[in-house]
């Protein structure tokens, strides 16, 4: 195992796949010599040349739609939207073109496209540079939506996404770029759509991803001192959603907390709750609790940002609520 940052794990994944397959290329705003707004593609243009790693104009529909056009003609584009919030600018290209091109054209094409998009609140990005839009794309049948929470998953999921013949919206959390963790040496692939039981427990199931997965682990550690056993499941993405792993856990613990950064209303937690209600409500000893972002735009002031995005105390409170019944 090597210890590295989430950012470096992403860079290694890109470099390894660029090395491995000449049909892989990287394009987006500032991804060339500059190395990306968050430095993820740093050094890649030097190493692989301007043919493989290049800048685009500020043209999000071109970045994604051009990626679709290249993908259906034999290439494996990895395109970068500078912020995940910008999915809204390229929504037709993501929701209608990337997701549906294969299906609506009779399965005659594959769309091996990866759309990397940094999401999440970090250091006061404000209302249009901090959002976590996974739920917006959850209904885009034909698309995969992936949310790595650790350096190991960042690397393994990105490599799998690049090799996938399906379009993948890869939502990396920019607040996690500096997070360090162990990453297996050598070829490391993580299956898309397979949840990670990050911590085993018996009293309550917490389904959480990206930053909230880490807050859930902190909460679990804190409550362990009181003899409370928390199981933490990271679904690693919302489409495909590994409902089997979640249901199996809930049937054992009888209690469910769902935690994510995105606003509660219309968040992916609602879908998780609905699946559990449909398929395992008889096993629930208490109502489901969602710990999620407030239903407001995210303020730029970091002193206020932290009141919008839930932290460890909110996850602890959520767990106490489901245990109080």
């Amino acid at each position, binding site marked *: 195992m090597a210890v590295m940052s989430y950012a470096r794990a992403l860079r290694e994944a890109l470099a390894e796949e660029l090395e491995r397959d000449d049909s892989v290329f990287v394009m987006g705003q500032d991804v060339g010599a500059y190395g990306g707004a968050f430095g993820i593609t740093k050094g890649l243009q030097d190493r692989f040349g301007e043919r493989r790693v290049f800048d685009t*104009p500020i043209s999000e529909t071109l970045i994604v739609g*051009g990626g679709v056009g290249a993908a259906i003609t034999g290439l494996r584009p990895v395109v970068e939207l500078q912020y995940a919030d910008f999915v809204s600018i390229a929504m037709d290209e993501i929701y*209608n073109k990337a997701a549906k091109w294969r299906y609506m054209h009779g399965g005659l094409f594959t769309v091996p496209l990866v759309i990397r998009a940094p999401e999440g609140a970090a250091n006061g990005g404000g209302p249009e540079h901090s959002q976590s839009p996974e739920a917006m794309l959850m209904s885009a049948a034909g698309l995969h939506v992936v949310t790595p929470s650790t350096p190991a998953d960042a690397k393994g999921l990105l490599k799998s996404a690049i090799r996938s013949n399906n379009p993948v919206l890869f939502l990396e959390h920019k607040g996690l770029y500096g997070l360090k963790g162990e990453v297996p040496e050598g070829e490391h692939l993580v299956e898309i759509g397979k949840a990670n039981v990050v911590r085993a427990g018996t009293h309550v199931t917490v389904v959480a991803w990206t930053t909230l997965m880490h807050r859930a682990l902190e909460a679990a550690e804190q409550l362990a001192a009181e003899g409370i056993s928390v199981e933490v499941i990271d679904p690693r993405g919302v489409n495909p959603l590994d409902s089997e792993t979640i249901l199996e856990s809930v049937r054992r613990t009888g209690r469910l907390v769902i935690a994510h950064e995105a606003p509660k209303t219309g968040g992916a937690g609602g879908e998780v709750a609905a699946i559990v209600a449909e398929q395992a409500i008889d096993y629930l000893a208490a109502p489901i609790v969602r710990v999620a972002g407030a239903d407001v735009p995210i303020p730029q002031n970091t002193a206020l940002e932290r009141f919008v995005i839930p932290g460890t105390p909110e996850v602890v409170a959520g767990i106490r609520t489901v245990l109080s019944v």
Partner: protein
Amino acid sequence: MEIDTQLSLMREMLRVNLWEERLFRLIEEGRTSGFYHAGRGQEAAAVGAVSALRSDDYLLYNHRGMGQAIAKGVPLDRLFGDFLGMTEGTTGGLGAGIVHIAWPEVGVLGQSGTLGGAFVLAAGAGLSIRYRETDQVVMCFFGEGASNRGTWHEAANAASLWKLPVIWLCENNGYSISVPASSALSTPQVADRASAYGMPGVVVDGMDPIAVREATDAAVARARAGEGPTLIEVMTYRLRGHYEGDPETYRSREEVDQWRLRDPLITFPERLLASGVATQDDLDRMKAEVFEEIQAAAEVALRGTPPGADRVMQGLYA
């Protein structure tokens, strides 16, 4: 222009037209939907442009684009199959009315259901050609109405910036459904916009297949030579409604009649006869042969298999 080329333009326009005539019968018989967007009147534009392409060149056709797809070589029985909702159609039975026909082996990449959605895909296909270092080109059809989409700006800018082998083929038929071009365009011609992207913009008589073909030949040669995209605006007219059953309250009978005088299916045969390229017998024989081809294709398609409910969940993911 070579005699053989002129005759093949004629034959292809007949294939487009007789295919569509047969489709109208299927619509009348209730076998497929009247949402079909007829290309009647625009045959010279579609055939003149697409005939300049090779089989391995790419085509993104548009919603009025069955003539474009036929000219590129989509098998006619499969095309009928799409409209009839048969498994043997290119989409495997998904569509009727307005369908997402594709046929990769002749470069037909499909259709964007959202108007102007194909611009950026075309730029991406052009990027792919340049990346793979082949001498293919990509042709993207759109109407004057769709040229107002923001995707046009992003795609046109990138294609010119990167000198991508793209032919932007605008069919200006005067209307985006009901809104006349003069109420939607800030410039007299769509081609006027080409200069903003540093590419050539040409206006061509879209009722003359030879003029369209010559303009497209030049654009294709330029693209293959690595000199970048060209915007071709062909001035044409749709002689039927936006869809079958359109009340057409937005234009006068007189206006339509004026354009009927320029119908390429009347004027082009007249020209071939006048110039001695073909005799009436030649044209009659050609029409009979195409008619046979169309009838045979329709019969094959009508014997097709309607899909079952299991079709719905097939092919979503690779």
